[in-house]
């Protein structure tokens, strides 16, 4: 088997995302963490794109790497936090157990993926899809099969909007009524 461009892209973007994710975890300065997260998201957007999920890749870039990350960074700026001395929780036992727990879980995952590889590899890779077509199909799905979920999401956003505003107006909130 030869290394196709797609494979290469996977390794580059995958490696980038992993590295930046580790950066999120390890950077003691929250701002750097935020930036690493943004990088992760961008590289994930690239991966989406390499899987011809154009629309999703776009949304990822705009909503996530754009809006959400900006929000995070803004809040961080608001708090004006410097690099933290105590970035990580203490406790050797607890820390060890956390690592072990997550490690074991990941191990279980990887084993499961390996075990189920046969069935999964059996699924054929679809041919390249036209970006417009796929987006159109997605749209049809959103307004067809998933129309309720879509509407519910709308309601969710509405409620959250009002809720977030209300939250800001409580005592101690950013817009508290004095």
């Amino acid at each position, binding site marked *: 088997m030869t290394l196709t461009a797609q494979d290469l892209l996977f390794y580059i973007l995958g490696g980038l995302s992993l590295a930046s994710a580790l950066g999120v975890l390890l950077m003691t300065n929250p701002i750097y963490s935020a930036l690493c997260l943004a990088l992760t998201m961008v590289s994930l957007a690239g991966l989406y794109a390499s899987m011809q999920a154009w629309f999703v890749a776009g949304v990822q870039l705009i909503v996530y790497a754009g809006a959400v990350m900006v929000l995070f960074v803004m809040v961080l700026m608001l708090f004006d936090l410097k690099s933290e001395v105590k970035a990580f929780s203490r406790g050797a036992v607890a820390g060890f157990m956390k690592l072990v727990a997550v490690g074991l879980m990941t191990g279980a995952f990887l*084993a499961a993926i390996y075990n189920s590889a046969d069935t999964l590899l059996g699924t054929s890779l679809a041919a390249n899809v036209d970006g417009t077509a796929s987006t159109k199909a997605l749209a049809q799905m959103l*307004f067809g*099969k*998933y129309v*309720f979920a879509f509407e519910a999401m709308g*309601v969710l956003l509405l*409620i959250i909007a009002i809720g977030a505003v*209300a939250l800001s107006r409580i*005592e*101690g909130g950013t817009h508290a009524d004095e």
Partner: protein
Amino acid sequence: MNHALGISSYLIVAPMLALLAASLVPVMLKVFSGNREPHPFVTTTYGFIAVATALGLAITFLGGSKFGFHNALVSDGLSLWASVIVLVSGGFSIFMMHDHVETQTKLFSEKVFLLLGSLIGMLIVVLSNDLIVTFLGIETMSLCLYVLIAMSRETILSKEAAFKYFILGSFASAIFLYGIALIYGTAGTTQFPGLMEQVGPLLESRNHLFLIGIVFVVLGFAFKVSVFPFHFWTPDVYQGAPTPVTAFMATAVKAATFVAILRLFQSTGYQHSLPLKEVISWLAALTMLVGNAAAIMQANFKRMLAYSSVAHSGYLMVGVVAAGFGDSQGVASAAGIVVLFYLLAYSIMTLGSFAFVALLEKSVGQALQVDDVRGLARSHPVLAGCMAIVLFSLAGVPPLLGFFGKFGLFSLAIEQNFYWLAIWGVLNSVISVYYYLRPIVLMYMQGEDSSANAPLIEMNKHIMTRFTLFGSAVLIIIMGMFSSPILAALKAAILGRS
């Protein structure tokens, strides 16, 4: 693809629409009146009308195994009765919010709005026929609750509670979502009917990814209904949240989520995974034990009730085990009946007990200790009597409602040959007697000697909360003695009116 929706789709969502429409009214009023908070009673009335309308619509239109929105929603007996439970506890919670010092603030209309929003989320959960829709419902419900908790007048504990709940909730949501992703990847669908057909083959072929997916989804649900070891947030959040909101969380959230769990376990395919059955049985058993044992050690009344609600989740999990792993025909329906009946009973009892707590909390952020009720029977015989009934019912003393709830659950367990679970369950209910009776001891049997001249305990004059407590006591007796019509209705609704 036919995008046209039948009329039935709209009928199914009618209760939600009613809730949404009515909930916006107070907020709109406030906006258009120059940010002047309407009188709380007005807001409460709107909230009550919203709930009542939704309830009416739910009773009218739900049930009978209808699908809507391209099978995204299902309206059957489960959803009908779960909606009723959720809406009723929502209504009582609004009453209690009206009275309670921590919730009745200048932002009361927003709070009612959020509570109604949370109710919408719950309705979505109970009506959902698709895991991703369930996820959306759960998120709607939870996000509203986070905000609602944080909006308490109390400034330290409620914020901490809200934040803990938020972080842990999101964490659990992520896991839950991962589970959905794996299920989607392996089963190819997230809609329950299709999924249930796949469960058997996938488990039989020991598809590990699917198994992980199921486990993660169950784990996400388990978090919401506070099953050990995913229950740790419960006491903290229940304590920190304003009591009316706690009551709402303890009842409605649990009811909605358990219905979702039941939908997940509607397949006989789970028979193929013995370990899954064992592990869920273990979780149920441990949840009962930990909930009851920890409740014994509590001095704080709300924490005690929180642990008690953990224990009740353990009992309910027995129903889930029976539903998923029982081997007889129609066991899922039977489980639906007894679990819903238990949820109904549990909700009524829990509302009553939290109403009692609310009545005794006089100031913001007061930590009501169990010992504070000492000698209450002397000053408030009627309320103490109501609370005693509630507590006896929680302990499972016949012929109160709680007893028949347990009776149903354990019957199911025995019918499906889960003997050890049933024995463990009843033994745990004996442990629970100890802490349920403690307030009764304090109310009735102590505080006589020292407080002959001491001032009587004062209780809040809150009419609506009193009504809640009193109503729950009356319902416990009446529905206990005459549970037959309710059970018949449940049976008819869930087995289909044939």
